[in-house]
């Protein structure tokens, strides 16, 4: 106790203590947030329905949840586009990524927790497909991830990387729109995005990218999703700007701190 007191009176608390405390606080709060959001994500997993639903159930679901904007017969209203010809694939993509039902009007539909079970989504997709057909769900062969990785990566760089970033980390577009990151997107949703061209994304039809091209791109992306980053901490794969800021703040900041320590008088 006496020694403790003596230490205090000499001002032995390191000048780095404040910085260390802030660092520890940031790491802790970040960790708790990450844990909490993972827990929330885990609990919001939709539970599978017991019975198989039909297109008629899909119609009821559509009329209850979608018709306000898209019209009772998919014809569209002032608040939402017509769904003629968008197909089952577009419904599956928009609803099971949480983009639809739309949270609010804005530059772009936000991804949010999924509102329906897989069965309900497929039932609505069946209904939309039955009224005005469009692209349907692909065969398993296209989604199997066994395509030519090098070719897929080249096609990705030519057709996709300008918006989605060469590491698939996404990027900004104009006026609040953005190309989402596709580092944890499923094979089906990558395929659906290419075929249906959601929102501002261009459509890549089978004459532009053949089904085999799409399979290669999906394979390359799936490979990239699983592969560890060889360089270690990738800072969101956002490229030289993020990396430059990291070096400016932490690298040069560290050098400044060391310089201050070297020149400070010992107490």
């Amino acid at each position, binding site marked *: 106790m006496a020694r403790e007191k003596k230490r205090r009176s*000499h001002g*032995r608390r390191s000048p780095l203590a404040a910085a260390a405390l802030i660092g520890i606080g940031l790491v802790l709060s970040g960790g708790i947030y990450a844990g909490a959001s993972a827990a929330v994500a885990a609990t919001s997993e939709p539970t599978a329905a017991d019975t198989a639903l039909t297109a008629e159930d899909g119609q009821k679901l559509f009329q209850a949840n979608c018709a306000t904007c898209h019209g009772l017969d998919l014809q569209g209203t002032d608040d939402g586009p017509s769904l003629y010809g968008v197909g089952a694939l577009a419904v599956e993509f928009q609803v099971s990524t949480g983009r639809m039902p739309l949270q609010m009007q804005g530059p772009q539909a936000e991804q949010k927790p999924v509102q329906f079970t897989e069965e309900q989504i497929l039932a609505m997709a069946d209904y939309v497909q039955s009224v005005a057909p469009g692209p349907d769900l692909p065969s398993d062969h296209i989604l199997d991830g066994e395509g030519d990785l090098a070719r897929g990566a*080249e096609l990705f760089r*030519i*057709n996709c990387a*300008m*918006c989605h970033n060469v590491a698939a980390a996404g*990027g900004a*577009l*104009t006026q609040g*729109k953005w*190309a989402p990151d596709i580092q944890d997107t499923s094979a089906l949703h990558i395929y659906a995005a290419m075929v249906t*061209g959601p*929102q*501002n*994304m*261009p*459509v*890549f*039809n089978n*004459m*532009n990218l053949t089904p085999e091209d799409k399979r290669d791109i999906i394979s390359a992306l799936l490979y990239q999703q699983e*592969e*560890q*980053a*060889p*360089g*270690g901490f990738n800072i969101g794969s956002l490229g030289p700007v993020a990396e430059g800021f990291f070096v400016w703040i932490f690298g040069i900041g560290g050098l400044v701190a060391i310089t201050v*320590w*070297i020149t400070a*008088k*010992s*107490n």
Partner: protein
Amino acid sequence: MAHEHDTQAVERVYRPSPGLAVAVDDPVQNPGLPPHRERVTDKDPQANRRAVRTVYTLFYVSVAASIWAVAAYMLFPIEGEYATMGNIRNNNLFIGLGIAFALLAIGIGAIHWSKSLMSDKEHVEARHSTRGSEPTRAAVIQAFATANEESGFGRRKMIRNSLFAALVASVIPGITLFRNLAPNDGNDPVQLLNETMWAKGERLVLDPEGTPVKAADVTIGSAFHIIPESLAGLSHDEGYLEEKAKAIVLLVRLLPEQLKETEERKTWSYDGIVAYSKVCTHVGCPVALYEQQTHHLLCPCHQSQFDVTEHAKVVFGPAARPLPQLPITVDAEGYLVAKDGFSEPVGPSFWERH
């Protein structure tokens, strides 16, 4: 030490040096050095021993880290069956950590040693005047005069002037070398910048496969990345990349009524299909961020935006000119072909294009 006994000593001997300062009656008082403050390690033998322990511990940590770096080299093999990205990363990480700690611990230990244990008494070193004495200055001038006299540099004007000429001429090879960085295959660089591989009848094919594109393939809302057909067959040795950098084109289709075309360019599109150079007119980045609902093309480098419906005019950003449009039509088999080459040079401004 001076600062311990007489803090005013410096001021009392203050004598402005002639020629270096204007003597004033009330010069700013020299505050002198602050009183010496003893460190914890000077007063408390226990703290002193602790600092000693810290310093030698740091040096031993350095030894351990060096040994660890050698061990990590063996523990994380990256050859043969272990040659995976993950192993290479671990290998780099752990060897790097070892070397980093080995060097950091030496540095931190040395500085901690000097700050907490070595003598920290302040000393005053008076500055002397920097001006040489008169005899020194005269001697230097004499030395230069003698050197001039003996070398004959001022007297032998022919030799001196020829030396100047040689020095000037020695720069000329550098100019030649740098000038030679311009294309040297007998082609005029201005011509190279003006022309692309696009010409009348050249088919529009997909990048990189070389598949020709039919007008019917281009659905509304899609974006095709296009190169000229004769480029697709080039090898890298034949200038594939140089030609591709100029010839890349983005092909999109809109509803014909969405296009706001000028009278003279009405025939440059085909049924709502338009083709524009992908090379930004600002500094030449590939402009390919196509937003199919706004019909805007965004350049990722400096955020220039071009409106595809209005001949790719600049709607935002630093680009000075619209993207050059490639006039297109279809051939007898229905494939899209260029009606002509670009009517203007693609890409950024250069010395003969502003």
